[in-house]
């Protein structure tokens, strides 16, 4: 039989939700442009009074120090972008390299004022590999007036494609600067010493140095170096930037970018998916808490450990021995401690009914206070207030191992028939569980501390694992707020997770060959 509610719900999880999620996910930033394999760049040689043009390109695979030989690179030049290009020189394998993976060439046979286009081509096993066309470049002769840089045998090329923009998704006072790194910027290249970032309020300057960064790209995916300027940037004010590359005494500056203005944003784009999914979770939790409050019966599956509680207490009664209850070793501000106390309420009720002696050693004064209230109330509800006295709940010490040693002693001396460990534990868990086990007590443990679970699982008869602890406290207390949020977590959290995961996994597995799975996974990226 079909229930419209169910159909709607499943429709939501299977179709609508994935669709929405898919639609709102954030977009990647701008890529830097490059022209592999050569990525040829050309500049007017800095510091050359005669005026010349310098070329730089990346060496093709196989052209490296370890190789014995490699075909020559042919340098082609033209006055117009579309050509025709004629050969003006070659760079042979033996020619010293600019950097381990790049080559340079200087063309002095140029007339200042004209503009030129360049290409590089190379004959690799039969087929000629041609580069992008770099240009137009106009060679500029530096006049004696300017401070002349020495013309090095290797020329430093500047960072390019400089972009400055208001840093997104922040509360202002910050501007991001991105650029494509200089071709001389090779990994841990001994001579390359990073970039200087300069800033001014007016394009013509004066510019002040506001920061420096090391070489290398910060975002390999987009092939850019990123610098965020947070040095007392004022919102609404105009800024101009340029970036210098530093290399073995030479300096090569990028062009100036700007004006750019910092500002603050009202919504963090890229956190849309988070907002939607979190919204669903919060909604369903609150929704079900409401339902529970309005008296609707919410189902919780049986939890093995809990079935055993009655039996364990009963056993203690038969043997005429005590029941020990350890509500963790953390303070009241820990959720697990609170869960532990809720379970204590139930246990105390049983011990009251069975007239079994209960002892609750604790390691925090606050916990002692709360625990006393809890136990007292249970005994009251069980109609046995006369059996309750404050000494059932007592404080040992705050010190982790001191506490463990204390409980150890008690357990060994009094040999309780049943021991409960419910709450947050650290290293002491092992000491406790082992001692309890050694006197053959029935032990029922519960904690959400992953590192301690193994000891409980192995040394105790029953263990509430992680979330089961919280579930148990809801199950026992029947408190609407707990029941409701448990159900809410199931529907708004796990069901969402399961359905989204399954749907996207299926799609990705099927579409894997078409190579769009990467894009699909990005949907859930956190920002």
């Amino acid at each position: 039989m079909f229930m419209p509610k169910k159909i709607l719900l499943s429709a939501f999880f299977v179709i609508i939700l994935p669709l929405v999620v898919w639609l709102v996910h954030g977009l990647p930033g701008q890529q830097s442009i490059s022209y592999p394999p050569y990525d040829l760049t050309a500049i007017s040689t800095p510091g050359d009074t005669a005026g010349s043009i310098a070329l730089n390109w990346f060496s093709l695979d196989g052209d490296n120090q370890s190789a014995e030989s490699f075909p020559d690179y042919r340098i082609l030049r033209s006055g117009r972008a579309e050509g025709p290009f004629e050969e003006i020189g070659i760079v042979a394998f033996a020619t010293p390299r600019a950097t381990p993976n790049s080559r340079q060439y200087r063309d002095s046979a140029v007339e200042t004022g004209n503009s030129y286009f360049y290409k590089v081509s190379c004959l690799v096993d039969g087929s000629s590999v041609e580069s992008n066309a770099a240009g137009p470049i106009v060679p500029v002769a530096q006049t004696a007036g300017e401070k002349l840089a020495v013309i090095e045998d290797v020329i430093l090329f500047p960072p390019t494609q400089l972009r400055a923009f208001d840093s997104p998704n922040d509360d202002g006072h910050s501007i991001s600067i991105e650029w494509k790194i200089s071709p001389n910027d090779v990994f841990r290249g001994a001579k390359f010493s990073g970039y200087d970032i300069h800033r001014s309020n007016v394009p013509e300057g004066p510019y002040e140095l506001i920061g420096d960064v090391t070489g290398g790209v910060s975002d390999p995916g987009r092939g850019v170096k990123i610098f965020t300027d947070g040095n007392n940037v004022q919102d609404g004010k105009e800024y101009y930037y340029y970036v210098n590359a530093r290399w073995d005494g030479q300096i090569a500056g990028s062009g100036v970018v700007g004006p750019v203005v910092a500002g603050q944003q009202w919504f963090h784009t890229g956190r849309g998916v988070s907002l939607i999914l979190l919204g669903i979770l919060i909604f369903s939790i609150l929704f079900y808490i409401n339902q529970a409050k309005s008296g609707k019966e919410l189902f919780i599956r049986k939890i093995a450990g809990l079935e055993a509680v009655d039996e364990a207490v009963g056993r203690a009664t038969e043997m005429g021995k005590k029941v020990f209850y350890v509500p963790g070793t953390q303070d009241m501000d820990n959720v697990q401690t609170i869960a532990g106390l809720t379970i204590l309420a139930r246990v105390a009720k049983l011990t009251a009914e069975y007239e079994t002696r209960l002892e609750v050693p604790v390691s925090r004064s606050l916990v002692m206070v709360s625990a006393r209230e809890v136990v007292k109330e249970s005994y009251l509800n069980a109609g046995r207030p006369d059996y309750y006295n404050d000494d059932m709940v007592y404080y040992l010490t705050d010190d982790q191992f001191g506490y463990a040693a204390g409980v150890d002693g008690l357990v060994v001396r009094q040999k309780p028939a049943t021991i409960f460990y419910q709450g947050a534990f650290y290293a002491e868990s092992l000491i406790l569980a082992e001692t309890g086990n050694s006197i053959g007590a029935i032990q029922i443990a519960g904690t959400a501390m992953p590192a301690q679970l193994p000891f409980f699982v192995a040394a105790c008869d029953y263990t509430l694992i992680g979330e089961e602890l919280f579930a148990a406290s809801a199950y026992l207390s029947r408190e609407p707020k707990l029941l409701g949020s448990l159900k809410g977590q199931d529907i708004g959290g796990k069901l969402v997770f399961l359905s989204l995961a399954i749907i996207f996994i299926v799609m990705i597995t099927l579409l894997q060959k078409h190579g769009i799975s990467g894009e699909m996974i990005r949907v859930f990226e956190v920002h």
Partner: protein
Amino acid sequence: MHLSGEFGVWIAAFLTIGITSFLYKDNPIYKFCEALFVGISAGYWFVSLYFQNLLPKLFDNLGITKMLGLGEDNGAIQNVLAGQWDERIWYVLAGILGLMMILRLFPNIGWISRWPLAVVVGSTSGLYMITYFQSNFLSQLQKTVIPLIDLGRVAALPGGSGTLDEYFAAYLGNLVLVVGTLTGLVYFYFSKEHKGAFGNAAKVGIYFLMITFGASFGYTVMSRMSLLIGRLYFLFGDWLGFVR
């Protein structure tokens, strides 16, 4: 073998042995060392928190240091009195809250410590809500969304010479990750009875959890043993000088 000449090392050695003596049975020396430990560690926190938190964050910012003649720099109080707004003055509230916290020492007005407690609980709740959602829910969801078989890895396999991990990673890795995570979640799903297919999934889940616990048990043993090794090395090396 040449014994250490340092007085400190001898103290450390004595304390080390003193604590260990508990293994034989509880005894006064152990009790002494434990008491010492409790006192020293409390004092340690007390001092370092003063110098690294309260002094720079609270007293310097407010200018109390200057009032007491312990520093020159103006704090918020001086500035505000001088008539210029200084947003560090907000630290006054922090100071008051801190004081309220300490008032818990006196039971009759201890309830006031709920105010600072509220700030602490509030901040952690607010942060947990976001961070756990992002890092432990969303990111993990993202990393569970993977193709059931990783063709990329399969292609990358070195023919024949591959290791067990490589083959597993290529053919079964993703499958295990997905199945394990999902069935584990099914086990932690409370609003449905574990019956039929659902129940079986939960069973698979619990087995995954057990392997997980096994792994972390192994690691814990590793950890604990290392600590012992460290101490013994101190005794035999630094103190008795048997080993260098």
